[in-house]
């Protein structure tokens, strides 16, 4: 490491005058970032490649004969199906490649975007917020080096992912999955990653907080997803053309193999990144674009209660997720009416829905959507439940726990906000879905049904918070493992429907035990059990936290 840090110091002055100064040290920072991400990025890339390859490979058995493929195509050929997958043009072809692109790109593009956003914020704003950037910038490191290095690492990760996807898919040697299509497929993912990395390059300039910067960039990803879902399900795809995810889906790998929509991504990425560099010169190191306003000189009475205090810290994220989920629910709700009209009368689909245990078409679609909305709510719950750990490692728990506040009440306040907030977020998703759904179907009775269906998932969210609590109390260094819960729920809940996983895999997830309302009937027993398990896990987590040493700076 020593040699790596000193090398550019001698190299940088020799660099040509063309911008060499503001980028001095970029190469070292890139190597340094790769060193820090030597586990993180390979895990991300490996998981994405593996998930894609397993899905593709499973098609051999799932859709082995042409009739199965035709059924699969018919199954998604509805506004609702298209909203969850991609544009209908894929359906002109029922080859393995086309099916794969149609069902996977929309979701994996979101995940690649997530990887890219988190990579950029981690190496820019997070470094500034902790004050480490200040130290690094005082050495021979140019003004733009941090952002340039972060973007380079994100680009590198995206390109490696693209190549691995291309090579891996070609290597499967499946009919309809050829080399050229696989290359487009891989590059489509890289293109999505580049756009969102560049978006993060802009959002990290706006706010002084890493969480805020990531949140803003994730909101852009969410908006892109919602726009493409609305566009793809409607008659004209104009809305999809406003979304980078819509663009990459319109490269039509294995169908048309179009490159130019990916160029669109590249151009926007370059434009956004350039904007990020320009904006970064308009602000001070460590500061956002807006100056910090003065606040209250004294604390309100609520702030000094554990829950009130936790609520204050969680406020921003809670509002963000609440708004996002409400809008997402409303988007799905608005196509619920169309879904009903289109699907009614198509025999195969009604059969397929029968298997999910469907009553009506709208209800079955609604229960599928609900599973997706719940995973997003679970992401919020994990982030909120892990907050005490980040407070602890940042050294902010120490002064609080040296007051009359007990460990249980402090951590309990955060858990209360995580569980209560998760429930509220879920309620908002149900309300958005219900209000828009009732409006689009003209059936006012859907509103209470859908809100109820959403709330039925609340105990599963509490279990998620409980898992995080146990990790926090007993294995504080491994708290990030709590992410397994929403990721697993997503894999089983979404991919499981495509890949037809066995039931026991569903049972491993707390979300697998929730009755699929409104399609299925209400069953209180599993909900009661989940609530008891959640309470037990939280008690166990708090007991562990009371016994262990506090981690301090």
């Amino acid at each position, binding site marked *: 490491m020593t040699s790596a840090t000193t090398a550019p110091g001698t190299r940088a002055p020799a660099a040509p005058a063309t911008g060499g100064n503001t980028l001095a040290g970029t190469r070292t920072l890139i190597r340094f970032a790769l060193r820090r991400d030597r586990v993180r990025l390979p895990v991300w890339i490996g998981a994405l490649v593996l998930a894609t390859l397993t899905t593709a490979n499973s098609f051999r058995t799932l859709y082995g004969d042409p009739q199965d493929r035709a059924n699969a195509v018919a199954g998604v050929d509805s506004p609702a199906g298209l909203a969850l997958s991609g544009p209908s043009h894929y359906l002109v072809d029922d080859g393995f490649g086309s099916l794969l692109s149609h069902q996977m790109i929309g979701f994996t593009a979101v995940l690649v975007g997530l990887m890219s956003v988190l990579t950029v914020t981690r190496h820019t704003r997070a470094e500034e917020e902790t004050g480490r950037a200040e130290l690094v910038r005082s050495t021979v490191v140019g003004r733009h080096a941090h952002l340039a290095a972060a973007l380079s690492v994100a680009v590198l990760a995206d390109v490696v992912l693209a190549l691995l996807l291309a090579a891996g898919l070609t290597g499967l040697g499946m009919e309809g999955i050829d080399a050229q299509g696989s290359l487009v497929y891989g590059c489509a993912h890289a293109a999505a990653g580049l756009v969102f990395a560049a978006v993060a390059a802009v959002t990290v300039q706006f706010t002084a*907080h890493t969480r805020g910067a990531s949140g803003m960039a994730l909101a852009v990803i969410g908006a892109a997803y919602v726009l493409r879902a609305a566009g793809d399900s409607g008659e004209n795809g104009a809305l999809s053309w406003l979304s980078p995810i819509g663009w990459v889906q319109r490269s039509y790998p294995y169908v048309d193999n179009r490159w130019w929509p990916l160029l669109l991504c590249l151009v926007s990425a370059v434009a956004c990144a350039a904007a990020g560099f320009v904006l970064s010169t308009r602000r001070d190191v460590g500061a956002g674009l807006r100056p910090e306003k003065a606040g209250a000189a004294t*604390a309100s009475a609520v702030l000094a209660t554990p829950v009130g205090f936790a609520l204050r*810290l969680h406020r921003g994220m809670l509002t963000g997720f609440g708004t996002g989920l409400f809008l997402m629910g409303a988007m799905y709700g608005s196509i619920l009416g169309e879904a009903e009209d289109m699907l009614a009368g198509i025999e195969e689909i009604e059969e397929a829905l029968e298997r999910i245990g469907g009553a009506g078409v709208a209800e079955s679609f609604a229960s599928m959507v609900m599973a997706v909305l719940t995973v997003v709510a679970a992401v919020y719950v994990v982030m909120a439940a892990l907050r005490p750990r980040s407070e602890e490692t940042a050294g902010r728990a120490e*002064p*609080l726990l040296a007051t009359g*506040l007990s460990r249980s009440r402090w951590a309990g306040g955060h858990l209360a906000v995580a569980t209560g907030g998760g429930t509220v977020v879920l309620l908002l998703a149900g309300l958005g879905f219900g209000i828009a759904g009732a409006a689009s179907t003209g059936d006012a009775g859907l509103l209470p049904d859908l809100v109820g269906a959403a709330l039925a998932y609340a105990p599963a969210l509490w279990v998620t918070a409980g898992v995080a609590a146990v990790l926090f109390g007993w294995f504080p260094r491994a708290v990030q493992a709590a992410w397994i819960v929403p990721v697993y729920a997503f894999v089983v809940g979404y991919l499981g429907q495509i890949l037809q996983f066995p039931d026991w895999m569903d049972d491993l997830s707390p979300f697998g035990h929730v009755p699929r309302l409104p399609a299925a009937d209400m069953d209180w027993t599993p909900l009661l059990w989940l609530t008891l398990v959640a309470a037990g896990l939280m008690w166990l987590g708090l007991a562990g936290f009371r016994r262990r040493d506090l981690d301090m*700076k």
Partner: protein
Amino acid sequence: MTKAITVSGLHKSFGRTRALDGLDLDVEPGEVHGFLGPNGSGKSTTIRVLLGLLRADSGAVRVLGRDPWADAVELHRRLAYVPGDVELWPGLTGGEAIDLLARLRGGLDRRRRAELVERFDLDPTKKGRAYSKGNRQKVAIVAALASDAELLVLDEPTAGLDPLMEVVFQDVIGEAKAAGRTVLLSSHILAQVEKLADRVSIIRLGRTVQSGSLGELRHLTRTTIEVETERPATGLAALPGVHGLRTVDEATGRIRFDVDGGRVDGAVRKLTEFGIRSLISHPPTLEELMLRHYGDELAANGHGTGRDTDGEPR
């Protein structure tokens, strides 16, 4: 009367690192106790054990007569703590943080809070991230002193304060002492502890190496005497307890030497034989105390002692 703090044979390890290795500490009620040691000697670890934030591996620890691990919350209501590295919430103002900490501790004296904010010249409307290190420290100090705590635990509280604020801090601690509060003040800034502390404990490598009142500790060390006599002083070097005799100025015959605490009388008696024209004596500073304890480390680090002492670094 129960002692404010008693620690004996305290051990604490983090994995293979042994942070505390049989540390002892006694703090009497109502005293200001200096807790001295170089960086990494275990001061903060000890304090965190005293607060019940860390669990002792072995050893007996009592704070205000109670077990800090088992009775953490009850104890915390009776004490106030200023961490060495104050971290504030980026989204909360300094004023909110003060109120939060003080209220969670069990109450806040509004008048004293206002007075302290004024004296420390603190703007309570700024957001946490906008404060400098010194201002973050002021927030923690004001929060600690604005509540009625019996025991103040201060971990290097003035590391980021400017000299003016340090004077304010000393006044405030003096007032707390006058009000009968007990103060445990950790520091490696010796001058500050010297001004405030009644007694000190010096620790090193997780173990207490010296403990006692400043007077007692000084007794263990040497006084430096610089003297000008009418006739050249002879035979001094042969006196017991006299070290490092040397001539400062050939022309005036000014000499200088160090003398052991218990031997000052003999040395001065001897000097009177030669007619003292002027005499300056320096009491041993805590720097010298520390140098005698840590001189070998300092020398090993290449700092040397910077003093013309013959005192063999232990």
